[in-house]
């Protein structure tokens, strides 16, 4: 079997465009996930009534339903109710909805890892609960949770591979189209793998580096 190099070279622009789209969706999905996660974990930390239950329900709902179903619901389900969102908006909302709960759990893990004596030490200086969170708990929690946050970022980026289900021309969907049209299965899939690696490998390295930096600043190891 020989590799069809012409096909590969010709397909590069398509993959490039799809890769940027994948990155864009992942970027917004991750960013909004982080914000949702932080808000949810703070609500849980302060044990704010009512909101806390809502957050709990949200986390269970989001973690226990597949992203594909969430996307279908947003894209096809909401349209039936008269709310039509663009494909990209649906994808970003879906990713954020899913990622928010994962990020929240990562932050929560970090917050719980802050030792009780650190909190007492802060209390004994007369810090209020908000000051305690701002100066003592959250900075340390962030260091503790940075590796899970990194893992979640990569997870979310990979999850973008199913947004093709709602007609977005991401890397996966472009590949399916090419296979369908030209029957160049091996070449198309090879390009797909390479495209994901080009995006994910630098991101992995970056996150590992960041993790080391943050942990060193905090704990020196």
């Amino acid at each position, binding site marked *: 079997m020989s590799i069809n190099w012409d096909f590969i070279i010709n397909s590069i622009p398509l993959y490039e465009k799809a890769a940027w789209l994948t990155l864009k969706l992942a970027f917004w999905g991750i960013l909004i996930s982080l914000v949702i996660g932080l808000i949810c974990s703070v609500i849980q930390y302060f044990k704010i009534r009512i909101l806390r239950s809502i957050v709990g329900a949200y986390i269970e709902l989001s973690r226990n339903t597949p992203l594909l179903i969430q996307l279908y619901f947003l894209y096809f389900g909401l349209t039936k109710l008269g709310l039509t969102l663009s494909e990209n908006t649906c994808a970003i909302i879906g990713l954020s909805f899913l990622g928010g709960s994962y990020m929240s759990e990562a932050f929560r893990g970090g917050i719980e890892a802050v030792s009780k004596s650190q909190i007492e030490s802060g209390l004994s*200086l007369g810090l209020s609960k908000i000051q305690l969170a701002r*100066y003592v708990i959250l900075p340390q929690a962030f260091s503790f949770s940075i590796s899970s946050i990194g893992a979640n970022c990569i997870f979310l980026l990979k999850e973008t591979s199913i947004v093709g289900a709602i007609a977005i021309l991401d890397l996966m969907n472009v590949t399916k189209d090419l296979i369908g049209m030209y029957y160049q299965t091996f070449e198309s899939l090879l390009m797909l793998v390479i495209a994901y690696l080009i995006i994910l490998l630098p991101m992995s390295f970056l996150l590992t580096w960041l993790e080391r930096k943050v942990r060193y600043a905090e704990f020196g190891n």
Partner: protein
Amino acid sequence: MSSEEKQPLLEIKDLYKEYDKKMVLNDIQLQINKGEVIVVLGPSGCGKSTLLRCLNGLEPIQGGEIKLRGKSLSGKDVDWQKIRQHIGMVFQNYDLFPNMTVIENILLGPIKVQKRDKNQVLMQAKELLDRVGLLDRIDAYPRQLSGGQKQRIAIVRALCMNPEIMLFDEVTASLDPEMVREVLEVILGLAKQGMTMIIVTHEMAFAQAVADRIVFLDAGNICEIAEPQEFFTDPKTERAKQFLNIFQY
């Protein structure tokens, strides 16, 4: 004598404390005058640390009363955040904040809680750091310090709040032996300056040197309150005698 001078700085009356219906402290009566150094001794698990923690609201009490300069610290409407500024506490595991430098650790309370002038606090902090011999570590992170250094910084951090009382909870218990002295000397220095202190420790020689009165706790009750000379040479209770014997080889 004015009425203020006659009043004890801290007064503990009939204090009762339990965890899950299990008595931890019972019928604690103690008056601490300004400038006095109280050392609390007793076997492990007798409630020494719990007693200290009750005094700055880290543990709620189930009965009795604690009064700071005549003002009750019991009841639901007590503003512990305010009271804790007057009652400094140093813990066994130093618990400096690892995400802040030495000086940031020290300035946090005075500036964020007490809203004091930064330059004024900085001057005070430097003076205190100099006194504990750590002025050159002002910008270090806790991870760069030894246990003894961390504990001295923790003491400075508490002192910078200008507390009226300092509580020391087994502050040398996690230190390597050669670092114990440097920390104890700082506390001894504070005693000489007239700082009111309640100290929980297992360092018997230190207790004898620093204390005005020894409080001996056993199984949640005060067994004996005595001057150190008397307590160490001629303890009144059988329980205290047994306790002191353990320390003699």
